């Protein structure tokens, strides 16, 4: 249980500025995911919090208690911060049994023998691997090793649990199982969790909040739904969502009532209340429409208000069908639920909800109109 505050953190590796003036508060009990492409600084952030890296600038508070103060070169030892980390590689000690791996930290704290055993068995039971306690790590499958790594991290009842891409070495099916497992764990333990991943599906499905990183800078911190609905800029929009969002280029200009924007799908007017407050350039300017594939519904019969389009290719995949369309010379991807097959070059009609569109300023890349 703890509240983490990162204040003006700067981290350099040599001349490489990895974390740039990072400010982030993680509330007590949050499942906070640090999300971003590889090399954006998310793992470094995790390692700074854990104490394995020392930042050059900034402060870190855990529950108001100062853990890092770069100004006075104060860095509390990792073992004293009341947290634990699950490594991407699991980092299980190969010469110790599962039991000894989990018990190691407890023995370091000189807990009584009986207490150690109780804690170890409790966390092994929680991870449902109590029968593996006498095995060595190389006798376990990847998924079992993963569970041991988590059991080891939670055995000391950390106030804060850090997870560094823990699922990336598992196969697709196990990954889905473990996602559910981790979500349960978060609820049962109530611990604050910081979770690093580059997989946006993991982030969206598990977190209470997501911090999106871009090249060492925090670009957006929001709930999964808010992040998905309204990515703050074009890079974020591009990164979040699978299949990826459609970008349609168009033009827009400010109006007394709000905004008018035009793209290959038509011209749309928006009220002031839909705008983000981002500065809108004077006169006509280039903009980018962001339209989620599932917002593009396909009808086979023409109707008032529908937009005509041609099917370029369709990819039925069982539970869903992806359809690439050409509308007004622009390419557009649509995601339909269920198994529907379309002919190539078939004429179809698109039902769109302009309120759900995101509109970005092409020049700055920033969001100017919310999807509501």
């Amino acid at each position: 249980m703890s509240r983490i505050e990162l204040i003006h953190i700067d981290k350099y590796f040599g001349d490489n500025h990895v974390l740039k003036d990072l400010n982030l508060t993680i509330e007590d009990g949050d499942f906070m995911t640090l999300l971003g492409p590889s090399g954006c600084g998310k793992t470094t952030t995790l390692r700074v919090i854990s104490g394995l890296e020392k930042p050059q600038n900034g402060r870190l508070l855990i529950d108001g208690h100062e853990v890092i103060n770069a100004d006075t070169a104060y860095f509390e030892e990792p073992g004293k911060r009341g947290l634990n980390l699950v490594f991407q590689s699991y980092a299980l000690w190969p010469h110790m049994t599962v039991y000894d791996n989990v018990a190691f930290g407890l023995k370091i704290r000189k807990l009584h023998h009986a207490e150690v055993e109780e804690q170890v068995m409790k966390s092994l039971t929680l991870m449902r691997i109590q029968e593996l306690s006498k095995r060595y790590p190389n006798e376990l499958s990847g998924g079992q090793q993963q569970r041991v790594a988590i059991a080891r991290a939670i055995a000391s009842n950390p106030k804060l649990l850090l997870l560094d891409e823990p699922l990336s070495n598992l196969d697709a099916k196990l990954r889905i199982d473990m996602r559910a497992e981790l979500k349960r764990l978060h609820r049962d333990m109530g611990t604050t969790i910081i979770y690093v991943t580059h997989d946006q599906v993991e982030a969206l499905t598990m977190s209470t909040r997501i911090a999106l990183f871009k090249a060492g800078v925090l670009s957006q911190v929001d709930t999964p739904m808010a992040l998905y609905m309204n990515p703050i800029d074009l890079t974020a929009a591009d990164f979040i969502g699978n299949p990826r969002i459609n970008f349609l280029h168009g033009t827009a200009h400010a109006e007394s009532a709000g905004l008018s924007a035009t793209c290959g799908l038509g011209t749309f007017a928006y009220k002031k209340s839909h705008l983000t407050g981002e500065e809108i350039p004077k006169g006509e300017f280039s903009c980018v429409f962001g339209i989620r594939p599932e917002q593009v519904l396909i009808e086979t019969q023409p109707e008032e208000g529908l937009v005509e389009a041609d099917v370029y290719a369709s990819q039925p995949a069982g539970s869903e069908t992806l359809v690439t369309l050409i509308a007004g010379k622009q390419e557009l991807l649509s995601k339909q639920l269920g198994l529907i097959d379309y002919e190539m070059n078939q004429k179809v009609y698109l039902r769109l909800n302009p309120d759900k569109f995101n509109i970005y300023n092409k020049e700055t890349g920033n969001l100017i109109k919310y999807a509501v």
Partner: protein
Amino acid sequence: MSRQGTRKPLSLKRLKNQFFNLVGNPFNMVVFISLVALVALIVLPLLQMLKETVTLSRSELRRVDGQVGDFTLYYWKYLLSSQMTGAVLWQPLSHSLVTGFFTALISVPLGSILAWMMVRSDLPHKKAISMLVIIPYMIPSWTKALSWLAIFRNQRSGALGLLAGMGVAVPDFVAYGPIAIVLVMTLHYYAFSYIMVSGSLRSVNSELEEMAEIQGANKRQILKSITLPLVLPAVLSATIMTLSKSIGSYGVAANLGNRIGYFTLATKMKEFINGTGNTGVGYAMSLLLILLASGTIIANQRMVGTRKSYETMGGKGTRHSPIPLGKAKTPLMGFIVLFLFVAMVIPMFVLVMESFQVTTGGGYGLNNLTLYNYIGVRDFANQNIHYPGIFRNPEFSKALWNTVKLTVVASILTAFSGQFLGYISSRGRGRWFGKVTEQLVFVPYLMPGVAFSAIYFAMFSQPHLGGLIPSLYGTFALIVLVSVVKHFPFASRAGTANMLQIGVELEEAADLAGASFWRRMRSIIIPLAKQGFISGFMLVFISIAKELDLIVILMTPNNRTLSYLAFTYSKDGMAQMADAISICVLLFILVCYRIANHFGADIGKSWG
């Protein structure tokens, strides 16, 4: 840190914290101590020797004006531009270069061809042969010199060799001198080329060759255009390393050259250092030798290391379909058998037999065979031998004890330091201290053994820095020290490889669990490094057990090892006893090798 971001306000608290961060972290202290030790053990002795070459010593007072300790260029002038230059520099240098050149010229093609046949051809019994081919590498090169002498010795040495005993007139230029040196060194260093080239050949994916075959190339074309260019870097490296090693080699050149006054740079240098006076010149020669040997190695790394090392490993693991030799199979097989016979069976047979002979060169008749050389009692000694058999000879038992003591103590220390230095360079990858450690540790590798001990002789023959560095000459400690430091490169490479296998995250996980540095060492690093430690230890052990070049300058009667005793006895004309001693050394090494193999050590990774 100040170049990164803003400069921090200087406060007492900050200074205090920084100080405790630095000092309170045992890792920093460990790095600091090991850097100091490396500088003291490698850089300082080198500088000290350099200083000795420009400092006037007592023995030259007669010839040079000035006082002891004055700066002088006398030694360098003597070496480089005096009437003596021809005799003390050009002649030994040309001898070194000639023997080195011809050794490389013969041994590299020999080793490479053997390697190709063992790795890529369909020769029968490859497994057994490739074992046999590598055995000469385990035999000390000076033992081979003794075998050579056992066969070719003529009247000049007093005791006759096998051929002379059979009435063959063996001319001096066959028995001793450059031809003998080149051939004996070839029989040692071909194995070195063999190991390097076969390693490289093994990493060539045979799909590369099969692709050429599909394109329509025949066997010769494939060999010429695909295989050879791919292993060329390894062949070049082997050439350079052989050159460097044979130039710096002492034992063979001394055994086979000194008797007829054929000196190389290494043997001449030893004469100057241990002989009468003028050690300054000896040091200067040793610096030249180091320059020569390290120059070739560094040039090799520059040329071959970076530009021409191909990434030949395929992702799929390398498959090897052997290339059929066809009609050539029988003659090639014959060649290998003949080679092994000449290179291994005959010399070993002659060496063993001579150790049982009453008179060398007297044939193998029962009346000329005796166990005297092993267990003889002095009262029954014949003619001019004044020693009992080696097992009754206190000099032998002392040397045996010294050898065992030296190898055990030095290889434990070496293996331990190797793991330790390996830990620092693996954890310091990309950091300044990791690079500095790696570079410093590599320095002894660049120096021929005999030159390396010369710098230790310079450093420790008298106290320096007001007694802070004591005089260690004549002590067992000095011989241990020089053996340990000389093997740093090898041991620390093994240590680094070992430590790199232990992921940093394993340590970080323990760090997060609250384990201190020492606790992490004890519970994580040491248990995981144990296996690598043992195999590293065994390999160093063998290398130290057979060492002669490295300790010959530092030997005093009390510290003699078996290698040195054999060398001395041979020099003093007691061939049978020298042979008997080298057979004991060989047995010792073979036993160690068996044990090392048992622990999974690979002799191919050893050098020496």
